[in-house]
C-alpha cells in the first residue's frame, strides 16, 4: 500500500484495487510461497473461498496440503521476509494481505482469533493462564487489571473450567489436556472475535474430551454468531461441525461444497479416496479399506497437470489431460465446485456405482 496507513481501519479497503466483497470473510486467489534452498515451496497456490458469520467452514486435507499455512496467512502470521503472500483476504470489508502489519495486529485477537492444535506449546509455560488471557484482553481493551482479571475468570467459567476463580492463577502445566484446550478457547474468545480459526483443535485430545470441546465450540458460535474455520484431517469432526467443506490437496482446493453434498455426492476422486480410507463405526464392518495409493506430493515438485493424477485411479480416463493440463475449479452445481477433468456425468456414475456402495 502506497499511502501511509494511519487512522481508521476502514482505510485498508481503499488501496487494494478490487471491490470489497459482500461476504464476511472472502479469500481470493491466495498464494503463499516459501523460497527455500531446494526450490519454491508452493504451500498455498490459488485458494479462494468465502465465509459468512454464524457459519462454519471445514477445511480438510492431509498434512502438507496447506491447511495450516492458509490459516496463518489469514491471521497475517507469516514472516514476510521468508514467505511470499499474494492474493486478497477481505475480512468485514478490509483487505489484509496488503495491509500494514500493525493494522493486522490490531485486528488479530479482536476480530479474528485462533485456537491452536497443541495447547501446551501454544501457551507460555512461565505465565499463569489468567495472566495470558488478561494480557490479550488488555491489548484490545482499555481496562484496569482488575476488570480484565474478572473478565478472564468469566471466560474460564464460560468454557466450563471448574472453580475458575482459583484456577485462573494456575500455570498451563497444572491443567489437563482438555482443560488447556478450553483455556485456549477462552483466550481466543476473550475479545469476542467475529472470526475464529480452529487449527486441529481436538486432534491431541481423547474422544470424550473432543466431544466436549466440539459441543463447546458449537454453543459459543451460537452465542457470539462468529464465523468458524475448522481445520482438521478428521472427516468425522467435519461432518459434525461444518456447514461447508473445502477439500485441499497440494495447496489447492479440489472440491468445495455444502457438508451434505460433500459427504453424499462428492465429485472429486480425492474426496472419494478420503471417504474410502476411513473405517466407519456407522457402517457394517468392511473387509478392506480402500486407501489412496502412494503418498502426497512434495510441494516443491507438484505434479504437472492435475496434482492428484499420480494417485488417482481414474486419471487414465482422460486421454492424458490429467498429466498435462491442470483442471480448473469449476462450479458444477450451485455451491458445489470441483477440479477434475472427468466429465461430470461419468463422475456421478462412478460415485454411485463404484464408490458409494463400498463406503
Amino acid at each position, binding site marked *: 500500500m502506497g499511502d501511509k496507513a494511519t487512522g481508521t481501519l476502514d482505510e485498508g479497503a481503499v488501496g487494494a484495487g478490487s471491490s470489497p466483497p459482500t461476504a464476511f470473510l472472502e479469500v481470493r486467489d491466495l498464494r503463499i510461497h516459501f523460497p527455500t534452498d531446494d526450490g519454491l515451496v508452493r504451500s498455498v497456490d490459488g485458494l479462494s473461498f468465502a465465509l459468512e458469520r454464524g457459519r462454519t467452514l471445514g477445511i480438510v486435507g*492431509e*498434512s502438507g496440503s496447506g491447511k495450516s499455512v492458509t490459516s496463518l496467512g489469514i491471521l497475517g502470521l507469516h514472516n514476510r521476509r521468508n514467505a511470499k503472500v499474494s492474493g486478497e483476504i477481505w475480512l468485514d470489508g478490509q483487505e489484509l494481505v496488503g495491509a500494514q502489519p500493525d493494522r493486522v495486529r490490531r485486528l488479530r485477537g479482536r476480530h479474528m482469533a485462533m485456537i491452536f492444535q497443541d495447547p501446551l506449546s501454544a501457551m507460555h509455560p512461565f505465565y499463569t493462564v489468567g495472566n495470558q488471557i488478561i494480557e490479550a484482553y488488555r491489548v484490545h481493551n482499555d481496562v484496569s487489571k482488575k476488570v480484565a482479571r474478572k473478565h478472564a475468570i468469566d471466560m474460564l467459567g464460560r468454557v466450563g473450567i*471448574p472453580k475458575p476463580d482459583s484456577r485462573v492463577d494456575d500455570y498451563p502445566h497444572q491443567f*489437563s*489436556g*482438555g*482443560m488447556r484446550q478450553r483455556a485456549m478457547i477462552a483466550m481466543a474468545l476473550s475479545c469476542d472475535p467475529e472470526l475464529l480459526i480452529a487449527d486441529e483443535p481436538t486432534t491431541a485430545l*481423547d*474422544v*470424550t*474430551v*473432543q*466431544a*466436549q470441546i*466440539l*459441543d463447546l465450540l458449537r454453543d459459543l458460535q451460537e452465542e457470539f454468531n462468529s464465523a468458524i474455520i475448522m481445520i482438521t*484431517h*478428521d*472427516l*468425522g*469432526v*467435519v*461432518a*459434525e461441525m*461444518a456447514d461447508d467443506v473445502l477439500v485441499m490437496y497440494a495447496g489447492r482446493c479440489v472440491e468445495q461444497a455444502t*457438508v*451434505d453434498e460433500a*459427504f*453424499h455426492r462428492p465429485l472429486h476422486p480425492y474426496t472419494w*479416496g*478420503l*471417504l*474410502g*480410507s*476411513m*473405517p*466407519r*463405526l*456407522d457402517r457394517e*464392518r*468392511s*473387509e*478392506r*479399506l*480402500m*486407501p*489412496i*495409493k502412494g*503418498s*502426497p506430493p512434495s510441494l516443491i515438485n507438484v505434479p504437472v497437470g492435475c496434482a492428484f493424477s499420480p494417485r488417482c485411479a481414474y486419471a487414465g480416463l482422460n486421454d492424458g489431460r490429467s498429466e498435462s493440463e491442470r483442471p480448473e475449479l469449476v462450479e458444477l452445481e450451485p455451491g458445489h465446485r470441483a477440479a477434475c477433468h472427468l466429465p461430470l456425468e461419468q463422475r456421478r456414475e462412478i460415485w454411485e456405482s463404484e464408490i458409494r456402495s463400498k463406503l
Partner: protein
Amino acid sequence: MSTSQTGAGSDPVEGAAVPAGSVVEAAAAPAVSTKKATRPDRSGEPLLQVENLGKHFPVTAGLLRRQVAAVKAVDGVSFSVHKGETLGLVGESGCGKTTTGRMIMRLLDSSFGRITFEGQDITKLSQQKMRPLRRDLQMIFQDPYSSLNPRQTVGSIVGAPFRLQKLQTESGVKKAVQDLLELVGLNPEHYNRYPHEFSGGQRQRIGIARTLALKPRLIVADEPVSALDVSIQAQVVNLLEDLQDELDLTYVVIAHDLSVVRHISDRIAVMYLGKIVEISDGHDLYAAPMHPYTNALLSAVPIPDPAGRRGRERIRLQGDVPSPLDPPPACRFHTRCWKAQDICKRIEPPLVELAPGHQTACHFPENAPAGATELVARAAAEQEASAPVAASGGRRHVGKHR
C-alpha cells in the same frame, strides 16, 4: 558372526523369503481377501495369557526417596490372545494400555500378575533368558520418526534383528532385508537409504519390516497408524491385515481410535484407569456395548455422515479422567457415570461373562440379558469373600517395587 554359520543360519532367510514372494503374488491379485473367513481357533491353549497383571509406578519424595504414593497405571488386567487372532486394546490416554503392551513385551517389569507366553511364564525371566524369546515377541511403535535411528541405513535398521540374534551371514542378511522391504511394499533398492528420505507412511513400513524380520509369533502394535495421514493409515491397516493372513500373525493392537480398532480386531478390550471394563468379540462390543463407559466412548466418536448429526443420541461425559495416583474406590468409573448408585462406590464390580464371550465389569450393564444384575451381584459377593487376600497381595508388591 562367521560365514561358516550359513548352514544353520539360512533357514530364517528362506523363512523370510518364502512369504515375501507369496504376498507379492497376493498383492498382484488383490481384492479377494480371505480375512476372517477362518475365525481364529479359540478352543486350544492361548498363545498369550495375562492374569491379574499390574504396574504401579512409585512416587518418591524426600532425601531418602521414600515412596509416598503409587501411580496405578495398570491395576490387575486379565486377558488371553489365541494364535492368529487380533486383540484390540482401547481406552483414553492414561488408561494403561501402552503400559500393558510394554509389560507383555517385557520392556517394563510388572508389579504383580503373571504373563504366560506359549505356556511359559515369562513374568520374571531375566534379560538373558528373555533374549531368545525376543524373536517371537516384537513390537510396532507409534512414532515412525523417533523409532528409527536417523544415522542408520534402512538395511542396517531392518537387518539389526538378524545381527542381534546372530542368525545370518552378511550377504544373507541383505537378501533377507530386501525381501522384507518388498513384503511391506517398499522398494528393495532403498536398502542404503536413510530414514529421513522416506515419508511417514514409508517409515512405518520400515518399522513393520524390522518387526517381521524374525517371524515373530506375537506382535504388539502400539498405535501403529495414529501418526499417519488418513489415506496412509488405510494403506498400513490393509498391510497389517494382509501380513496377518499371509504369515499367520497374532496381534495385540493398542489404539485410541475406535473405528480403526473395530476394523482390525477380532476381540476388543476396553480399558479405563488401569482396569479392563469390558472385553468382547468386536462385533458384539460395537453392536451391544454393555459398560456405560464403552457406550460413552462410542457415542463420542464423530460419525462422518452429516445426516446423522442431528438425530444421534449423545452421551457426554463430564470432566476428565481421574488421576491414576488416587483412583476412585470400587468402580473407577462411578465419578463420571450417569448410572452410578451407592453400590458402585462401595463394591468393585468384577468382570463377569454376561453373554457368550462378552465380559463386562459393571453393576448396571446395558444391553445385558435378563438376570445380569443378579449374576453381577453374586460374582461381586464371591469376590468380596476372597478380596482381602488379593488386595493385600497387590499392595505388598507395590511396596517391594523400587
